[in-house]
């Protein structure tokens, strides 16, 4: 496998409407993922700033980098933040966080904020995992299932194909629809075996759009099955990098016969956002407002 993987572009954002100096409680969440990391800063529970950057070689360095990037040009410094929650892949290490909370809990809270209290079912697909979460109107988890054992149905599974077909990640979705007829999905679930299958198809003369469609279809089907296990209840929302791949999103919607809510912010920040919301709630609790 090549060492260079295709990844979503990095970014940072500051709200034009919010000023941290007017705020009472400043909270932050840092989500260190296997492929990318995010930091979110809230002022009194309102979205103030966020950043999304590639995870480096270590968790503490990535956490620091992504936090620094979020604070860039805001004048806000780490010591002025009242509470920071860390979350992410495995036993994540965010040295400057006061507490770590699981990604499941954080994604549910983050999605509840991003998509509103009507959200009941969340699909999150990150670099190396896939989560199906059911939550209530407050963003509390009622049912969840996480798959981080098998690459099929994760961002890395899609990256393997992006590499194989030399298609940049931003084009994967659009390209998968440039087919006359939707082909049969790739039969192997395993990414390794699916890749061999794809090589065979390319040799048979299949254009790469068709191979991409076949794989996107297989991935959507797999993910839909995972969601069916926890039962899909509307409203349905998608977070994580995969939400930006319309090739997979539209096929999942078609299979589940439900449309996903439109995101208003970068879908990759859901975990960090949830963390920041928990941080905010924990400060409020300490201050006795709950």
């Amino acid at each position, binding site marked *: 496998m090549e060492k260079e993987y295709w990844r979503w572009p990095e970014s940072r954002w500051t709200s034009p409407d919010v000023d941290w100096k007017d705020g009472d409680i400043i909270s932050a969440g840092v989500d260190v993922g296997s492929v990318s990391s995010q930091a979110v800063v809230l002022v009194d529970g309102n979205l103030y700033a966020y950043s999304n950057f590639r995870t480096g070689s270590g968790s503490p360095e990535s956490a620091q980098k992504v936090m620094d990037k979020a604070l860039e040009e805001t004048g806000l410094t780490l010591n002025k933040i009242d509470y920071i929650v860390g979350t992410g892949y495995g036993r994540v290490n965010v040295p400057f966080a006061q507490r770590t909370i699981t990604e499941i809990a954080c994604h549910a809270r983050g999605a509840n904020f991003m998509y509103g209290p009507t959200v009941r079912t969340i699909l999150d697909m990150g670099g190396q995992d896939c989560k199906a979460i059911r939550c209530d109107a407050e963003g509390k*988890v009622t049912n969840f299932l*996480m798959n*981080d054992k098998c690459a099929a149905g994760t961002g890395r599974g899609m990256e393997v194909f992006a590499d194989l077909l030399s298609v940049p990640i931003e084009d994967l979705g659009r390209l998968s629809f440039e087919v006359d007829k939707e082909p049969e999905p790739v039969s192997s679930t*395993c990414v390794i*075996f699916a890749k061999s299958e794809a090589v065979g198809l390319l040799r048979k003369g299949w254009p790469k759009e068709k191979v991409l469609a076949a794989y996107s279809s297989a991935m959507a089907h*797999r993910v839909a*099955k995972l969601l069916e296990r926890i039962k899909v209840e509307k409203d349905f929302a998608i977070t994580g990098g995969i939400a930006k791949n319309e090739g997979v999103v539209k096929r999942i919607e078609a299979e589940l016969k439900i449309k996903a809510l439109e995101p208003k912010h970068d879908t990759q920040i859901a975990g960090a956002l949830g963390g920041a919301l928990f941080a905010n709630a924990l400060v409020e609790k300490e201050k006795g407002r709950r």
Partner: protein
Amino acid sequence: MLAHYGYKDGSGEYFIVIDTDKCDGCEECVAACPCGVLEVGEDENDPFREEPVARVTEEHRKKVKYSCGPCKPASGRIPLPCMEACGPGAISHSW
């Protein structure tokens, strides 16, 4: 909350489901399991819950198919010790 621990891979779907609303943290399942798959600790996914709850240990989450092998021979299933031990019936297996 229904916590599904496990995974789906090319060969199938393998999940141990713990209903945290039913689980009372009694630890009978931990003792009953011959392979140390279960433990009782804080509810990781509900930061505001104080009562402890049963979980699949991190070591086993990604290989439950293999971890539960001894209780699930290829032929001739036995009643699962963890499920028998659980009074409130909080544990179930998807395979």
